[in-house]
């Protein structure tokens, strides 16, 4: 069958079905009961799209090396993807999501780059004049032309946009991966730091992108160097954009990079004139943008502030001296809990680092066995990606009905006997209510309203905001200085001895 092309009704019908399945899948993915089915519907949509594309390529058959390339790439990618998906620990989820994001962006960038190479190849195959320049028939007639007049501005603009967004997604995600996996230390740069350099990089990249399309008339060889320069500059830009951003702002960064990976695919859809890429890419772009917005709102900061300012640690932090802090032990925690009728657990990044989710669930089960009500209060930016705590607690089989959002549970702290803060800091800092504080206006969990607050934390060191947390000095606050898992484990065994 050689006659089936992209424009055939069969293929376009398959692409339409695929687009609808993607939309259906995403809508199912948004509800707890149907989420797993939704993910599978989206996977089916992808399968339909890939099979339809392969049918089109069948017309190109007879070139065995090409099939080897295709099959080889798909097989290699499948094996790596399978192994990564199976092997990764749930605590390493943020890194993996960042990594996959980067790969998606990279693929879009490479496709656009390959299309530019193809266009350049065709361009270079044209006849040359006496001066060595290629003479071709462009939009404005015969002459020496550039990529934009030869292939149209849409093609070139979409291609350079794909490279820009895709490359920033790739290198930005790899930096985010490094930070999340603890491989890149978050060395804070000076007040000016790297940001002016980013502005220069961006301006240069835009200029080079313009040149790729609109300069080098009749000279495809020099245009090639401009394309390489564009790829290099945009990769550097991605690094420069993410390096200065602190670990606790990662939920915003990951959401934004997620959005970029969709927009890169979308832009590639304009390069290839393929509506399916535009639909699927836009869905991802929209989803990432909304998550970004939710994360920013949860920190009461604007996106620009997260990306370009960072938190000014010196603004209103005051001194970091603590007075009247009461230290406690796991044994005392067990005793306090023994008398409690209602307990709220507030998990934070420290819980993820210590992998304490299973021990926390064990403690909760013990308490529930004694008729105590146990709930979890989840701050939207607790952890390193949106919904990070929910995944960890789900892994430990904590029923999701016990997990409450900030708005749902904040009024209940005052009726609660004991609140245990496990590895969280800024999300329960009363400074958010003080004007002029670095985190002023950020929605926080009012844990101090409960009768007793036990804070499990390794030291009095500040959270990402770099400011003091007066919660630790409150009369009803007890500090349990230990690794989260060790502390909770000890409390569980003490509890058994009571």
């Amino acid at each position, binding site marked *: 069958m050689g006659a089936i092309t992209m424009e055939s009704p069969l293929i376009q019908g398959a692409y339409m079905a695929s687009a609808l399945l993607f939309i259906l899948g995403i809508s199912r993915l948004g509800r707890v009961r149907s989420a797993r089915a939704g993910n599978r519907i*989206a996977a089916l949509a992808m399968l339909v799209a890939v099979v339809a594309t392969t049918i089109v390529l069948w017309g190109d058959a007879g070139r065995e090396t090409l099939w080897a*390339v295709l099959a080889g790439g798909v097989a290699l990618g499948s094996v790596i993807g399978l192994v990564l998906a199976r092997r990764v620990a749930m605590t390493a989820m943020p890194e993996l999501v960042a990594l996959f994001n980067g790969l998606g962006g990279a693929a879009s960038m490479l*496709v656009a780059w390959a299309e530019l190479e193809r266009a350049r190849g065709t361009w270079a195959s044209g006849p040359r004049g006496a001066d060595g320049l290629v003479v071709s028939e462009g939009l404005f007639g015969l002459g020496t032309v550039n990529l934009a007049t030869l292939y149209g501005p849409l093609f070139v603009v979409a291609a350079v946009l794909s490279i820009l967004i895709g490359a920033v997604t790739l290198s930005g995600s790899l930096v985010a991966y490094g930070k999340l996996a603890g491989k890149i230390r978050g060395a804070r740069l000076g007040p000016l730091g790297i940001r002016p350099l980013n502005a220069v990089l961006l301006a240069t990249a835009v200029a080079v992108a313009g040149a790729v399309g609109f300069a080098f008339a009749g000279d495809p060889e020099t245009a090639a160097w401009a394309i390489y320069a564009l790829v290099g500059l945009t990769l550097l830009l991605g690094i420069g954009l993410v390096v200065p951003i602190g670990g606790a702002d990662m939920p915003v960064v990951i959401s934004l990079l997620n959005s970029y990976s969709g927009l890169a695919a979308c832009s590639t859809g304009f390069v290839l004139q393929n509506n399916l890429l535009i639909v699927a890419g836009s869905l991802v772009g929209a989803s990432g943008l909304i998550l970004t917005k939710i994360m920013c709102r949860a920190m009461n900061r604007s996106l620009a502030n997260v990306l370009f300012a960072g938190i000014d640690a010196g603004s209103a932090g005051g001194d970091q001296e603590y007075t009247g802090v009461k230290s406690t032990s796991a044994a005392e925690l067990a005793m306090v809990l023994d008398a409690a009728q209602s307990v709220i657990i507030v998990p934070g990044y420290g819980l993820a680092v210590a992998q304490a989710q299973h021990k926390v669930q064990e403690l909760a089960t013990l308490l529930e066995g004694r008729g105590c009500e146990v709930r979890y209060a989840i701050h939207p930016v607790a952890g390193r990606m*949106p*919904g990070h705590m929910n995944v960890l607690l789900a892994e430990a089989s904590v029923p999701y009905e016990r997990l409450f959002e900030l708005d749902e549970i904040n009024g209940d702290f005052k009726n609660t006997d004991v609140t245990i803060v496990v590895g969280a800091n800024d999300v329960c800092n009363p400074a958010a209510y003080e004007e002029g504080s670095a985190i002023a206006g950020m929605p926080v969990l009012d844990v101090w309203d409960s009768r007793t607050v036990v804070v499990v934390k390794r030291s009095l060191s500040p959270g990402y905001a770099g400011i003091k947390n007066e919660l630790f000095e409150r009369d009803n606050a007890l500090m349990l200085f230990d690794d989260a898992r060790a502390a909770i484990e000890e409390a569980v065994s003490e509890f058994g001895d009571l």
Partner: protein
Amino acid sequence: MTDLALLALPAATLADDGAGSFLIVGLWVFLLAIFVGVELITKVPPTLHTPLMSGANAISGITLVGALSCAAADFPQAGRVLGFLAITLATINVVGGFLVTDRMLGMFGSSGRGKKDAD
């Protein structure tokens, strides 16, 4: 001789009116899809934020469709190398993304049953 160059132009050429009208159609599709996406995702509960993100991530691997045609069509050597890389990376994104999302959501499912048992 110029006819040769014209024949070899990719579909994306503006030499006919196809690309101009595709821009308009493409922008319509883009706007409507963004609208649908925003409407669908605004309602997602925080519990599902991570699976949503990782599932969406896998969907962004749709660029695999573009990568496949890249490696197959009349591409120069450099284009094919890029195409092969693109296919591999996009497939990792797609296969890994959907599988890990399924694994995650499987845990959410079991916690749901746990709730029923507890009641």
